[in-house]
């Protein structure tokens, strides 16, 4: 492809590669460092004496007899029962993704197949709703939730997260369904299907790529949420992110910071795996959707 005139001068090329390397270090080093440090004791990870202790694990060696220790993980997962929070996160994410995809596909499909004027206004409304910071809605939720004794439970948080998710889900699925040719379901309608049957037998089988991409972003929203889950879940029902914040609140005793570090690394692992397997979908979702996840 590269015509001679397009070939880069060596200097420029080296510069670009160097820049990429610097960016890669900026992007990845903090995570690698934290993963490495999570297997050390606090005096190594936050070393007053010598920063290289965090690499060699000098104090860890003295305390635990080996430069690596899983004390932070044991403290977080067993002592502080972080596994409960992990299970809660799993429940919340699972139901948020399923519910918001179910009602989102129906709504997004309807928006893409209706030529009426109100579709535009509904999409605009969704865009406005998408821009509202979720934390500002919380003070609207609290009085009725307290009144009807709904506060603190997982289903409440799930329903709220589904609703907050809807505007984004609708936009993405709307633009995705528009790419599926209308002739497909129209011919099914001509053959005597109802609109729902056309959706069920013609659209559902071909919609999975878009639905998976949208589902990924729904998952990320539910998984990454801090403001809503902190405010709406009781202590016993906390998901991982509010639990990490709670660890930070109790950093008085030595070692507790390392619980938080271990918990942070544990919470990053699923996201790491997610990006590894679904990189293509995430990139296409970011570029295709008119909205960011």
């Amino acid at each position, binding site marked *: 492809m590269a015509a001679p005139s397009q070939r880069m001068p060596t200097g420029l090329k080296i510069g670009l590669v160097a820049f990429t390397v610097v960016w890669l270090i900026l992007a990845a080093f903090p*995570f690698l460092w934290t993963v490495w440090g999570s297997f050390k004791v606090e005096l190594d990870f936050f070393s007053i004496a010598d920063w290289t202790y*965090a690499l060699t694990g000098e104090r860890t060696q003295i305390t635990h007899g080996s430069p690596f220790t899983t004390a932070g993980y044991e403290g977080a997962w067993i002592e502080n029962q972080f596994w409960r929070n992990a299970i809660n996160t799993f429940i919340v994410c699972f139901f948020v993704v399923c519910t918001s995809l179910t009602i989102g596909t129906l709504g997004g499909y309807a928006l893409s197949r209706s030529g009426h004027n109100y579709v535009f206004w509904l999409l605009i*409304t969704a*865009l406005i709703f998408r821009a509202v910071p979720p934390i500002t809605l919380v003070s609207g939720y609290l009085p009725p939730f307290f009144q009807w004794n709904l506060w603190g439970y997982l289903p409440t948080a799930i329903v709220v997260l589904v609703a907050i998710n809807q505007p984004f889900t609708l936009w993405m699925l709307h633009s995705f369904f528009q790419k599926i040719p209308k002739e497909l379901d129209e011919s099914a309608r001509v053959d005597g299907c109802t609109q729902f049957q056309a959706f069920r037998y013609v659209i559902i089988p071909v919609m999975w790529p878009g639905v998976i991409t949208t589902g990924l972003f729904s998952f990320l929203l539910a998984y990454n949420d801090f403001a809503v889950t902190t405010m709406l879940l009781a202590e016993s029902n906390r998901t991982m992110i509010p639990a990490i914040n709670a660890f930070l609140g109790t950093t008085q005793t030595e070692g507790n910071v390392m619980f938080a570090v271990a918990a942070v690394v544990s919470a990053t692992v699923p996201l790491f795996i997610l990006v590894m397997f679904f990189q293509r979908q995430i990139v296409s979702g970011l570029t295709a959707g008119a909205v960011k996840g």
Partner: protein
Amino acid sequence: MKHKTFFWFFLPTALAMLVFIAAPMVSIVMQSLFVPHEAVLIETENCGPFGCTTSTAIDQEATAALRAEKPLGRFVGLDIYKDRGHLAFAEVGEAWQNTDSIGAFFSEMGDLPFYDALAFTLTYTFVCTPLLIMLGFAIAVAVNSLSRKIRGFVIFFSLLPMIVTPLVGSLVLFWMIDSRGVLGNLISYLVNDPDLSVKASTPLMWISIITYGIWSSAPFAFVVFYAGLQTVPQDTLESAQIDGATRWQQIRYVVFPHLMPLVTFVALIQLMDNFKVFEPIVGFNAAAHATSLSWIVFNDLGGETRQLSAAATTSVLTVLGVAILLSPVLVRTWRDFRGKT
């Protein structure tokens, strides 16, 4: 599609949004206009052999009756908006009259929590957004020049800062810039000041949070621009080359115009998202040095005393801010729509 079919398809999602987004928005406006009833007090006089004493007690029945009668609370109009915790008209007016220079006036304003938070929120929004666009563009150009084999690998690591939970990402950075962390050590070595602590300095804290903001959002700009670079019209590039355009001229006159709509798109999205800045303030434990509007809402809602009215008022003001930032997007969408029909 018939109206009726559309209605049934759209009903579940519409209900969810009405009940959990539209209704709370109405609710916060109401809450910002009312305050909870004070308890009704009754004075009783107890007369005994040693004279009379008056004691004040809460009249439980009357209080309950009042609360049942007007569940919204006492109507106070815009009083909460005007109080010291929010727009603080009285304090601002006083500061304006009593200070003799603009600098002194702004430092007085900095003591008012709302304006303090607004200052940081706006600084964060308008510093982060252009810088992350530039960084994202630079990464996109650099990655685009790499061989295809390693691009996937680079994109994988580039996505991480954006995908990880904001609280987690900010904690990871915060632990590194801690005075005992690796970056904190490096910085104090570089400036040759062993006692330097980012946590204790307001400007350094602002810089750290803004750095986090750029770090975590640049990947979004990068991905969008990278996708844009794949669709740069090759014919135009070639004809520019034939006409003798230098490399810089090709970028300036072919690539930039092609990417301009994407820049606008990223800028608008990021302005709105950065205005919501909240998690890094919690993660960096920075409330003493930097607060944002969302953080004030969070702070009012948390703790034992949930100050719903105060939180609702700040919420309304935040939503108004978002609305101002959103208006260009709406105008654009409206124009596109007009253009189509």
